Each structure stands twice: as structure tokens, then as C-alpha cells.
């Protein structure tokens, strides 16, 4: 099936009647502003579509990943307190809306698979995630171009195909249309609903690959032997221990549960946390097993490239390049992988 670009708006408008539809938007496209005029950030993200929204499907990657739709930065869980009679109560807060993420890239689609592993496998389902996940449909668009920071194909992904998405749109070489393939039941339902706007034909699709290549061969095995390697000390020096990399990462999924108490009632919520923050690993009684930046930096990369794979069989880095672009001190995961590959293992043993 073929979807002409000019019909996109019709599809989105139709879908928005049934569900909350999120599309990639750059601020310039919508209010012509940018900092200095509106105070809006110079960044792109998935925003709720409504007629009038101007999606930007040519963005290689949004600054913020779409994980917020499944795993919000702040998610209210329940309220509790005493009612007027003095009895305790607890009210669980549920989300009930259907959500479509339209226009995500292969990397982001893969990131949802990673989060599914975390929240929905190994015998424990996270109710709050599950609710949202069940009501989510994803529409991936293959990349027509890549950014200098993209390296997904080195991480085992294909920029042109996102098998985990419910629908895959592949841009035609003419630049005017997408080839539409439903990849799941949800996807079939979605595509069916688009039927009025689709053409029953096909086209040649663009194929791109990343310019930035990383050698991930044997990385996990090598890292397993490098926990005590002195290289971490050096690699972590420049890190500021801010949470930028973890917050722009589509797969980082750590959260903290906290509450806001008033006198007679309160609210429990969970919010993103970052392994870069000192409070992240701080325990009651103030002991902190990762008190300085070295163990925190090591934890982040070991988790991405080694521990996650141990547990779920896939690496937690999807090669989207967001952290590479946004790190204020250019602590670049691809360079770090190079350094790891170049490291001398005998040093790790010495220390160990």
C-alpha cells in the first residue's frame, strides 16, 4: 500500500478523533518561535497532534525520545489519605486513553522493545506501564537520511526497518510517498482505518545506512572482564554527572517512587531517575555504594552494553546518537566503545 504525503494530515486528523496521537514537532514549525520569542526550548519532541499541528517527519531524531508516552517523566500512581470521617483511603490513578506514536524511527521502536523487556517480562508486569503499553500503537517511518551521530546499524538495527513497530512506513525514493506495511494486529487495524487515504500500489523505497560505525564485536565479553579496569577512572573524569544522557536516552528506564504529603492526604508518583545522580544509589543511613562519578559512569555503560544483554539478550543502546549529540562535555559512547575495544585487559587483572 502506498501513502501519499499529502494525505498524512487526513490520517492524523482521523486518528486524533479516536486516540491521543503524538507526532514529532520542531518548535519552529509550530510557532516560529524558538528561544528569545516564546521561551520554548530549542528542541524537538513528540507532541500531541491536533489539527493545526505541523508535524516534522523529516527530523532524523527528536531531541527527546518518545518514551514519555509510555513511561512518563512523572507518573501519578495513587492518592491516599483520611476522608472526612477519619478513615484511610487509597485511590489508584489510571490512564485510559488510546495512544498512537506516529513517525518514530527504528531506534525508538527498538527502545520500546527494551522497555517491554524490563516492565513486562521475567515474571513481573508493571501495571502502570502495561496499561499504557496495551493502549499504544506505534507507526515507524524508515529513515530517509541519517545524522552524523547516528550509529544504529552498528548496534544491530536497520534504519530502514523497525520490526517491532505496529506499522512500518518506508519513504519512497520520489520523496512524495510512503510504502505502508502493517506488522501486527494493531497495525492491521490501524492501516485498515487509513484505507480511504491509501493507494493500492507500491514504490521503490530509500535505503540509508549510518556514516558513524562502531565496532561492537565481543564488546560484552570484554566488558565482563573490565569492571575493575583503571580505564573507567580516566573515562569518567570529564563526566559532569548530570542526567542529560539518561533523560534523552530512549531506553533509560530507571525511576524513583516518591510522594508529596500534605497534612491529611498525599500522592504517590514515580518519576525518572538517573544513575548519574548521587541520590540514585544512596541508601537509608546515607551510605552510597556509588559515591563518585567513576562508579556511576561505569554503571551506566556497563548496564547499556553488558548487564542488560546478560539479562535480556539485547544491548540497551539502540544507536540513536542522542547522548552523543547532547552531552555537554562530549563524553561520546562511540568513542568510549572504541576506548574499551582498545583497552589492555591485563591492567584490569592487575587491579582485580
Amino acid at each position, binding site marked *: 500500500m502506498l501513502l501519499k504525503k499529502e494525505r498524512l494530515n487526513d490520517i492524523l486528523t482521523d486518528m486524533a478523533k479516536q486516540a491521543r496521537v503524538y507526532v514529532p514537532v520542531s518548535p519552529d514549525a509550530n510557532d516560529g518561535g524558538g528561544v528569545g520569542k516564546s521561551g520554548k526550548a530549542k528542541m524537538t519532541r513528540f507532541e500531541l497532534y491536533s489539527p493545526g499541528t505541523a508535524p516534522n517527519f523529516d527530523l532524523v531524531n527528536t531531541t527527546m525520545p518518545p518514551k514519555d508516552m509510555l513511561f512518563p517523566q512523572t507518573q*501519578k*500512581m*495513587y*492518592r491516599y*489519605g483520611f*476522608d*472526612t470521617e477519619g478513615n484511610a*483511603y*487509597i*485511590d*489508584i*490513578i*489510571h*490512564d*485510559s486513553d488510546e495512544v498512537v506514536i506516529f513517525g518514530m524511527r527504528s531506534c525508538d521502536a527498538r527502545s520500546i522493545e527494551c522497555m517491554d523487556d524490563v516492565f513486562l517480562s521475567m515474571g513481573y508486569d508493571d*501495571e502502570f506501564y502495561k496499561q499504557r503499553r496495551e493502549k499504544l500503537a506505534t507507526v515507524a517511518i524508515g529513515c530517509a537520511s541519517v545524522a552524523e551521530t547516528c550509529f544504529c546499524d552498528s548496534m544491530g538495527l536497520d534504519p530502514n526497518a523497525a520490526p517491532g513497530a505496529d506499522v512500518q512506513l518506508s519513504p519512497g525514493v520520489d520523496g512524495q510517498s510512503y510504502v505502508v506495511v502493517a506488522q501486527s494486529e494493531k497495525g492491521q487495524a490501524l492501516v485498515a482505518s487509513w484505507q480511504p487515504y491509501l493507494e493500492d500500489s507500491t514504490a521503490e523505497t530509500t535505503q540509508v545506512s549510518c556514516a558513524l560505525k562502531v565496532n561492537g564485536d565481543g564488546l560484552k565479553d570484554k566488558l565482563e572482564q573490565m569492571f575493575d579496569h583503571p580505564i573507567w577512572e580516566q573515562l569518567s573524569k570529564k563526566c559532569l554527572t548530570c542526567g542529560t544522557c539518561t533523560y534523552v536516552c530512549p531506553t533509560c528506564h530507571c525511576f524513583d*517512587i516518591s510522594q508529596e504529603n500534605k497534612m*491529611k*492526604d498525599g500522592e504517590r508518583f514515580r518519576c525518572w531517575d538517573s544513575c548519574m545522580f548521587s541520590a540514585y544509589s544512596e541508601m537509608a543511613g546515607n551510605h552510597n555504594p556509588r559515591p563518585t562519578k567513576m562508579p556511576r559512569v561505569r554503571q551506566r555503560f556497563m548496564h547499556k552494553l553488558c548487564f542488560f544483554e546478560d539479562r535480556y539478550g539485547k544491548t540497551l543502546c539502540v544507536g540513536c546518537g542522542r547522548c552523543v549529540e547532547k552531552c555537554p562535555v562530549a563524553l561520546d559512547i562511540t568513542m568510549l566503545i572504541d576506548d574499551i575495544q582498545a583497552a589492555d585487559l591485563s591492567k584490569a587483572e592487575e587491579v582485580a
Partner: protein
Amino acid sequence: MSVVNDTQAAASTGTETFEPKILAFACHWCTYSGADLAGLNRMSYPANVRVLRVPCSGRVNPQYILTALNKGVDGVLVCGCHPGDCHYVSGNYYAKRRLMAFRRMLQYTGLEPERFQVRWISGSEAGKFRDTVTSVVEQVRELGPYKPDPALAALIDSSVDASNPVLPEGGEA
């Protein structure tokens, strides 16, 4: 969904005239005794104000002010001894600098100036206390409720499920 707590109910039902909540920080030595004197003289002023006693206006951390606004008061008043009269010599001078700069910052980022005010009121100025409180209440009543994040309030109430009033399994401590 049903759970709306009593305080919200109170806030949302009495709609005829909006009654602002005003928090007044008062230093123990001057303004608090000025407020006491207003009572002693049986002066009357609006009940919208709650006085929070601190030892000195220098104890008032600007962070309290923003917290109070965030948590739901509609206006904050900070009062202390007149410059030069501080029981602790200099507390109100420090307060003056901090609060002056902080107040400008709040206004810069869009707060109505009436919502955060500072006044020097001595222990003998019961009348000034009454007048100040009255005028702050009137000014803020005119402005209406402080809605620092209109989007937030709407979002919270969108989806609360009361059908499941039990502790979640394996609930955190």
C-alpha cells in the same frame, strides 16, 4: 471518579466571591506584636490572612515564598521591623536585600507584584498591620486565584480510579 478532598471542595464551591489565602510571615519582635496590638485594640481585618511567626524577617527564606505559592496560597506578605530597629541588629537589612532581589525575579518571570509584598511594621503600628493586611487581601482578591500551572490541575483529575481502593501488592514502604 469521586475522590475530591474536602479542601478542594471548599475551594471550588464557594464561588460567589473568591476569598484569597494570604500567608503573612511576621517577625516575633515587631510585626507579630503589632498584630497582637491590633487584636488588643479590637481592630478588624479580613480573616484571609494567616500569620506565621518567625524570630526575624532575616529568617524568611525566599524558598518559603515560592513553596507557599506553589502549594496553594494566593499571596504572601513578609513583615519585619523597620530598618534600624531589628532586634537582632541586621536581620531585616539582609531580608531587605534578599527579598528585594527575589521579588524582582518573581515579577520578571511573570508574577503579579501584589502577590508577594514586603512591609516593615513595628510593634506599635497596629493600624499599619491592619491596613496592610486589608489592602493585600483586597488586591489579591481582585487578581483572583493564583494558578501557577493551569495545565497541571486539569491533568491530575483526568483519570482517577476509585474502584480499586486497596493497597497495591508489594507496595513500597
